[in-house]
């Protein structure tokens, strides 16, 4: 199959258009600007809309308008812009509107810097907006997955009538890898609930207001049931050499790629290490963590943050196994050798057998 060497950010846009997305509303920010630039180039050619909005706040409400009118729509940003979008995300979830948001994470808090970080986990996975809602969060670790998970994001958004995030870090967004795009583009589809300015859809109403407490609670329960179904049916993860793993490492995005190299390095020294990589951060692969906890001695979580996904691992384990954490922040991405030192240290600390010749070098 033909492949294209392409940046992660651009792959998202091409995949989105192939998946039937016909509206991109966004605001430039490093390291996500290539998304807006690619959308500006390709969306008009595809018969869609690209508009550079006045702010990320406006962008997310433009998604609201486009989605309410039944069009597959997306935006992209990085930490500071995603923070501004939180209000709109709450409204989108409340009004049950499907849309896709790509977050190409950079360093924070505040202006931080433009280097890769994973500090948006909490605001994206836990939801920074008000009210009881979730966004579905997909975490690609390659450019191919940037394309594949973007297409999946649109399907999940429609199926659950909910915003879906593609959460990547600056490294995955900026790097180029070969991508095989979907062979058959998707026809933009009709949503029966949308307000399309037609006689058939005239009585349709998109809203998130339920004035009566009983009505609002019923709506919240309905959303809750939807999220429970999502947790049952949509969990995705990758296991890498976990079969006999005594140390289970966990990480997502660029960190997972580094962890694969770490697993390779440490396996070569006789340490039984594996990787559990969540592909869906919400819903989190709780059952997979619990299953591996039955055989593993300990878990090691690695993030480009001071520990955010860490909390979900701890909740999933609920004390069943010890969890150790290694985090770099500020835009520093640790090489595999550095992470391997951490893993050797915790393995030793918890009495995991290591080949003698390897111990001599530590």
């Amino acid at each position, binding site marked *: *199959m*033909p492949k*294209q*060497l392409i940046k992660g950010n651009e792959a998202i846009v*091409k995949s989105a*258009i*192939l998946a039937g997305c016909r*509206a991109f*509303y966004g605001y430039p920010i*490093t390291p996500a600007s290539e998304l807006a630039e690619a959308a500006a180039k*390709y969306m008009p*050619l*595809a*018969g*869609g*809309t690209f*508009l550079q*909005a*006045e702010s990320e*706040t406006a962008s997310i*409400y*433009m*998604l*609201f*308008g*486009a989605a*309410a*009118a*039944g069009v597959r729509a997306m935006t992209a940003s990085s930490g500071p812009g995603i923070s501004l979008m939180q*209000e*709109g995300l709450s409204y989108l979830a409340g009004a049950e509107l499907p849309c896709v948001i790509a977050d190409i994470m950079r360093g924070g808090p505040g202006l931080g*810097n*433009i*280097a890769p970080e994973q500090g948006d986990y909490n605001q994206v996975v836990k939801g920074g907006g008000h009210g009881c809602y979730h966004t579905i969060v997909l975490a690609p670790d390659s450019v191919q997955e940037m394309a594949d998970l973007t297409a999946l994001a649109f399907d999940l958004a429609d199926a659950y009538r909910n915003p879906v995030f593609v959460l990547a870090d*600056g*490294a995955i967004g*900026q*790097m*180029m*890898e*070969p991508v095989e*795009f979907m062979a058959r*583009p998707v*026809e933009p589809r009709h949503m029966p609930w949308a*307000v399309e*300015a*037609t*006689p058939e859809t005239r*009585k349709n*109403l998109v*809203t998130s*207001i339920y004035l009566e407490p009983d009505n609002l609670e019923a709506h919240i329960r309905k959303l809750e049931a939807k999220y429970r179904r999502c947790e049952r049916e949509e969990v995705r993860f990758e296991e890498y050499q976990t079969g006999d793993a005594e140390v289970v490492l966990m990480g997502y995005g*660029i960190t997972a*790629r580094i962890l*694969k*190299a770490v697993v390779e390095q440490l396996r070569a020294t006789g340490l039984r290490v594996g990787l559990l990589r969540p592909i869906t951060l919400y819903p989190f692969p709780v059952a997979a963590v619990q299953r591996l906890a039955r055989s593993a001695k300990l878990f090691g979580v690695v993030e480009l943050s001071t520990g955010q996904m860490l909390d979900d691992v701890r909740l999933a384990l609920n004390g069943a196994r010890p969890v150790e954490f290694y985090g770099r922040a500020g*835009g520093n991405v640790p*090489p*595999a*050798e550095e992470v391997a030192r951490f893993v050797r240290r915790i393995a030793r600390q918890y009495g995991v057998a290591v080949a003698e010749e390897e111990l001599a070098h530590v």
Partner: protein
Amino acid sequence: MSEFSVLQQKAESFYPNYGRKAELQHQTHYCPGCGHGIISKLLARAIDELGIQDRTILVNPVGCSVFGYYYFDVGNIQSAHGRAPAVATAAKRARPHSVVVSYQGDGDLAAIGTAEILHAANRGEPITVIFVNNAIYGMTGGQLAPTTPVGAKSTTTPYGRSIFNEGYPLHVCETLASLEAPVYLERVAIGNIKGILQAGKAIRRGLENQVNGLGFSLIEVLSPCPTIWKTTPQDAQKRIREELSKIYPVGVFRDLTGDRGARPAALPAPTLNELPALLELDAAHTFETPDRRPTQAVDWRIKVAGFGGQGVLMLGEVLAEAGLAAGLDVSWLPSYGPEMRSGTSNCHVRLATHAIDSPLISRPNVLLALNEPSLRKFVHTVEPGGWVLYNADTLPPDCRRDDVNFVTDSFTKIADGIGDTRVGNIVMLGALMEAAHLVGDEQVDAALAHTVKSARWLEFDRKALVAGKLAARRIVQGVVQ
């Protein structure tokens, strides 16, 4: 009765009963004497008269205007405080045949939503905005609005609005009239029946403009709020006439309805079959990669480093493309974070016969150093047995190592000889290929042809490649293998 016929009755665009309301389903939630009811009635009448009920989308944001969807039998989108123009923008663009009405109060439009309204107007979005200015926050119980008169008391200006604390009343029509794009801006005041009838005309024109494909229209309506103003409906209308109309003079602030033609219609969308080529995913832009990978296992971990403008990223991209053409798994990672401070630029390229785990390269087996700082920074990270290509006549003594292969030459000077200093990176690429044979010549050429779009530059690059090879052939004979 038979000799009477209906002159005026409830508009068709209203629901007969307001089933979406919890109680009192044949009354609006508006207070006695409220201007919203009158404005709604004028809007519904205009929708009826223009025959656009089926294609109208009403955007209801926050405030007393939030419940428009109780009453209007049209497509309804409820929105957040201030964001209605952004929602309306995208709904209109999604459904260009629609007639989109954003119905906003003064807190909504003139305070929290100033960015959205200003930019929707400035883009000339073909929507109709009804701006209800009653100079107070009604729904939330009487707080200051940006349009509250100087000296007026509200629950958040208990001593009266002060020009030193809250500033002056905001004039929306006047502000928007400073923009070029809007087609129609009019302020009306429903302080008496004359004003009401004028408001009806203005609202109808605002909708007509959209039906005719024209741009942005806004009708500001000075509207009574007897309950929060703590007055009677009659005195509220009097205040409109005697006070608010003085601060906010009524009239047409912009009317280009006769001058502006209809906006161009969108181009027809391409067929799905046309999409891949439009997205540059056709054969000219992709590699049909070989089914089988090269049999001899390789894992080239290449770091390219130099200053911005030396073609560092492009050199890496050509290498990655060449690897892809050769059927290898490839990755290209630019350093754009702390590593690229003070103008340095580098990228990590990995070409391997196996699936690439980390694209991050900390122990390269090839270093392409386009300048001295880059050499100094990375030379000691190179794996023993690896290659270091350095862009200078001589190697600094403290960078010497016996366990790696050096190819040292002023590749940029060679490029100068070819005619453009900017192909120095490709000269170095040629030298690398000659020295280390990462991939075949035909794959490098295919990658160059793929990456370099201009025929003139491609010719330069091909010359540079050859020159680099010749240079390396001279040098490599002397290096430790």
